């Protein structure tokens, strides 16, 4: 039963992604991305990372995606026209080099993943035998909060500063120039 749901989420994510990259219409592509993000959040739950899933939905979908949609929609008409018009149809012919490279990477990564299954790294096996894996009954929020404030404090602060810099930069970049 669990496996079925998992496969369903995975299929939705991958399928949407595939459609997403072959679609010409930008708005539809963004909405498909929306679906991909939701599916991935579901997959996070299966990995026992419920907080990350919610954080994904909140920040990614609610923030980033909305930002993209707003930027896209609030742009001027000519830009929209530019974005709307495309040279190819739905399921356009892809550039074969990119396809080849992507497939190559896919093959390698899949192979590596499958290989990992038979040759698990030692720290995973020791963790399994020691039993220090995350159990479904654990309160991840509590643990993440403790770790963020103690072990990962520096990265936390740094990343907040970085975020601020990025936003300031973005705001500056998109300022209106005085036409004199």
């Amino acid at each position, binding site marked *: 039963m669990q496996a079925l749901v998992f496969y369903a989420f995975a299929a939705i994510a991958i399928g949407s992604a595939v459609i997403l990259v072959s679609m010409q219409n930008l708005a539809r592509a963004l909405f498909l991305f929306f679906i991909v993000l939701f599916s991935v959040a579901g997959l996070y739950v299966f990995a026992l990372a419920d907080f990350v899933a919610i954080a994904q939905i909140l920040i990614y979908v609610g923030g980033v995606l909305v930002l993209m949609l707003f930027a896209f929609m609030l742009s001027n008409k000519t830009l929209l026209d530019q974005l709307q018009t495309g040279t190819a149809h739905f399921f356009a012919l892809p550039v074969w*080099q*990119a396809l080849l*490279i992507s497939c*190559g*990477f896919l093959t*390698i990564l899949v*192979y*590596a993943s499958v290989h990992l299954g038979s040759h698990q790294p030692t720290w995973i096996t020791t963790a399994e035998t020691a039993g220090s894996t995350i159990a479904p009954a654990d309160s991840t929020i509590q643990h993440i909060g403790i770790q963020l404030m103690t072990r990962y404090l520096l990265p936390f602060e740094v990343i907040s500063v970085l975020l601020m810099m990025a936003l300031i930069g973005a705001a500056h970049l998109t300022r209106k120039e005085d036409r004199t």
Partner: protein
Amino acid sequence: MTPLTPTYTLLAALATVLLPLIGFLLSALAGKKAKSGAIGISTIALTVVTAAYTFAQVWDSEPIHVQWQWFTIGEQTFHVGVLLDNISVFMLLLVAVVALPVHIYSVAYMKGDLGIHRYWTYLGLFCAAMLGLVIADNLLLMYICWELVGFASYLLIGFWFTKDAAAQANKRAFIINRIGDIGFLIGFAILYSGFGTLDISTLVGPVVQNDLPPGWLTAAGLAFFLGAMAKSAQFPLHVWLPAAMEGPTSVSSLIHAATMVAAGVYLLARIFPVFDDTVLLVIASTGTVTALVAAYFALTQFDIKKILAFSTVSQLGFMMVGIGIGMYPIALFHLATHAFFKCLLFLCAGAVIHEMKHLADKHRLGIDPQDIRNMGGLGRHMPITFVTMGIASLALVGFPLTSGYLSKDALLVHAFEWAAWQQGAAHIIPYVLSFVSILTSFYIFRLLTKVFLGSAAVEPLANGQTKLHDPSTWMAGPMLFLAVCSLFPLFSFHPLNDGHVWLLQGIGVSKPWTSLPLLHLAIPIGSAFATLVVAAMTWRWYVKGTYALKTEGPLYRLSFHQGYLDGLYDRVVVGAVLWVSRALRWLDAHVVDGLVHGFAALGRSLAAVVAWIDRRIVDGLVRFVGKLAWGLGNVIRRTQTGRLQGYFGSLFLLILAILLYHIIVQA
């Protein structure tokens, strides 16, 4: 050979040669300023003085022979030197004494000529060369002076070189002289190879070592005679002398009457003992033929100078006969007398031409001032000229009381004696010479009567509009001096007999035959009588106008056209040379140049091949490398697209490759 201490005589002899040379150099340096001829006349006057001194010292005394070493080739040494004996000092004095009046005469005759500075320069050169020739002691030095004399003659004949006829004439003179010079050269080359020396006193001396095979001495003699033939205008090499009349008359008088043409006779007299009987016979025969032919041509000529030119040739023939019969002193005697009277004849002709030219210019008549048909009755206007020319003509025909009588009759008498001694066909010579004497009288009296007697031929003279004058003192003085020299007292105190001639007593030669006293009487009387008859005949024909012979016959035409010799030479000799030159030119243009062009073409084709190799292969290699680099660059350039996704593609491709490598190789 006397030791090298310089005596006054030697110095005087050297001065005689060097003074005109100095005059030549000074005139040449003075250039256009040497107009007055003062340099020329002063040097020649001094030359006369030194020549007279030398003559006085050496005549009938010990000969002086001085030699200096000149250059050495291998083991042979050549010398320059001076030989002063009776013959040479006599000729020295003769040349100097004849040159001086001519120089003085030239002052007036050449007055106003634009090139007069050249005239004095060339005359100085000529006098120096002639005097040098006379006292040269070896054949090489004589040859050098011989050539110089010919060169000076060339310069003076072509004095008015802007006239085409003059340019042609001096070329002809020089070329024919060159033919003779080859003979002189071959002659002394043979003598040198045979005798081992070129020294004249050795060659004509009593004992001489002879290495020559039999015919070579004759050949040498004939070769020398060839040289004398050209220089002294013997038939058939005489054609240059009438043409040489293009030069000024004073030049003609000095060079082509008195001195240069006598150089041939002088040479033969100098080395007389070298000649054997065959050569002497050839000389005598040629002289006779020349005398006859030239007198024949002189009969019908209308140009006054040409008549005198042929007369000169004829008299030179006489001199050659004198040498041929073995009596070279008589030849030299005739040379001396001829020098005076022929020079005078030319100077008088020059005076007449001078006056006729003035007349023609003044009245703008288009007449030739040298044509005797335009003259006539000039004796009334120019008495001095008439008298002096008359004396000279009488000397030419050998009328008694003149010097010419002594020399010519001596020649005729000895010719008859020689023929009597030789027997047989030799008699032709003296009879022909006698006939030539008659012809001589005819042509010279024809000239006298047509020019000076009778009535004038041109208008302004005939109707008494104009008068002609005797020439000025500058011209008349020399003429009178030479007229006096043409009379007997200069050479002998006895007017009628040649036994007392001091020249013949000084230069003597023994006669192998006995003298025939009858001839000594018969010949002079006969020739004087003939002269008078001929004089009367010409008077009747030319003054009275009753001409007895027809003028259109072939004999007349042959004489008038001078034997058509000029045309013959033109066609045969000149034509042959031109043909050879054309053939050689063809050879040069086609064969030689063809060879050169062939090499050039070969070089060009080689160059073309090399160029092809260079262009295609070498440059191709270079270009190929360049194209390779360009192609590679072009290909690699495409990686720099500026497109972001392209860069991504390359990046991920590389990472993929590395991962694949790790997986495949590690596994």
